[in-house]
């Protein structure tokens, strides 16, 4: 390998940001496209849209959104909501991981998946005042 090739490789290695992996997918949405905020930019998301760690999902009045995650967790975001996918780490071979989702406002229905099998409270949901540890179950969180 020439010195130039090594130099270019080093620069690319420093600059390139690895693409974030899909953690879930928007499956259904009433009232048209959903707004997803990623890296400060607002994206128009339709069914099939691939979600990434850090995404913020906002819904309009009267809008509902269904989401599946790669650990088989399912979520339903209610109207006038803002939900942040703060953390989502999942080893797809071992089926273990951890997640943190914030309900900033509105409502969120959850049917939990494989992450809850990893250990107690590996799946967490945060509200402005509290943190919930999920132990394999179906529930609704409201922040009004």
């Amino acid at each position, binding site marked *: 390998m020439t010195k130039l090739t090594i130099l270019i490789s080093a620069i690319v290695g420093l600059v390139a940001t690895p693409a974030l*992996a*899909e953690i879930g*997918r928007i*499956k*259904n949405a*009433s009232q048209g496209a959903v707004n997803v905020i990623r890296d400060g930019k607002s994206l128009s998301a339709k*069914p*099939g849209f691939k979600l990434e760690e850090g995404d913020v999902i906002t819904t309009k009045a009267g809008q*509902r*959104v*269904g*989401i*599946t995650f*790669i650990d*088989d967790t*399912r*979520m*339903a975001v*209610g109207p006038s909501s803002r939900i942040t996918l703060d953390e989502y780490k999942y080893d*797809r*071979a*071992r*089926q273990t991981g951890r997640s943190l989702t914030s309900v900033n406002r509105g*409502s969120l*229905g959850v*049917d*939990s998946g494989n992450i*809850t099998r990893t250990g*107690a*409270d590996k799946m*967490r*949901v945060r*509200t*402005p*005042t*509290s*943190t*919930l*540890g*999920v*132990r*394999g*179950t*179906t*529930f*609704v*969180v*409201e*922040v*009004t």
Partner: protein
Amino acid sequence: MRVRPASLAAALTGALLLAGCAGGERVTLLPAAQDRDVGALAVLGEDGEETVLDTANSQATLRAGSPRVRQLESVDPAYAELINSLPTRIEPQVIQFATAGSSISADQIANLKALLESLGPDLSIYQIEIAGYTDSVGTEQDNVRLSQSRANQVAQLLRDEGFEIADEDVIGRGEYDAVRTVGDNQESSRFRAVTIKIR
């Protein structure tokens, strides 16, 4: 860690909560979907204490400090409506293999093809995950390789039929499930399989 029983918290605050609670933050444990147990939710306090909800329709009003808990008589229709918006779960398909084998019958592929075609002309909204498994006989590395080979073969057969399967959705899960479930070095046909999940 100390556990604060939900029933005690409910008894202490029940009268106040009967008046209802407009606004604020609430979490409600619902009856489990399908055949699962109701499970549990814990409200985790900063002091290490936790309030556990473990009966269907128990509701905690969240606030700084301890939550207030009450038992609802039935599911709030608004919650039922929200839960009805959860994406439909599609039953996973399973292909079994002989010991160390990775051959698949034409019938099995035809069944998979029919299932995928039944979902409609646009499959781009679906994630098709193909995961291979082995039993726990043999080394971890060999079993990862064998399970990946099984998954790759199913994925290729579906790709040959025109379906798009992303590389990252073809997964070799080796013996991890088998070790977790029945222990190491156990021969078990149920783990010699590939599952196809459509989300």
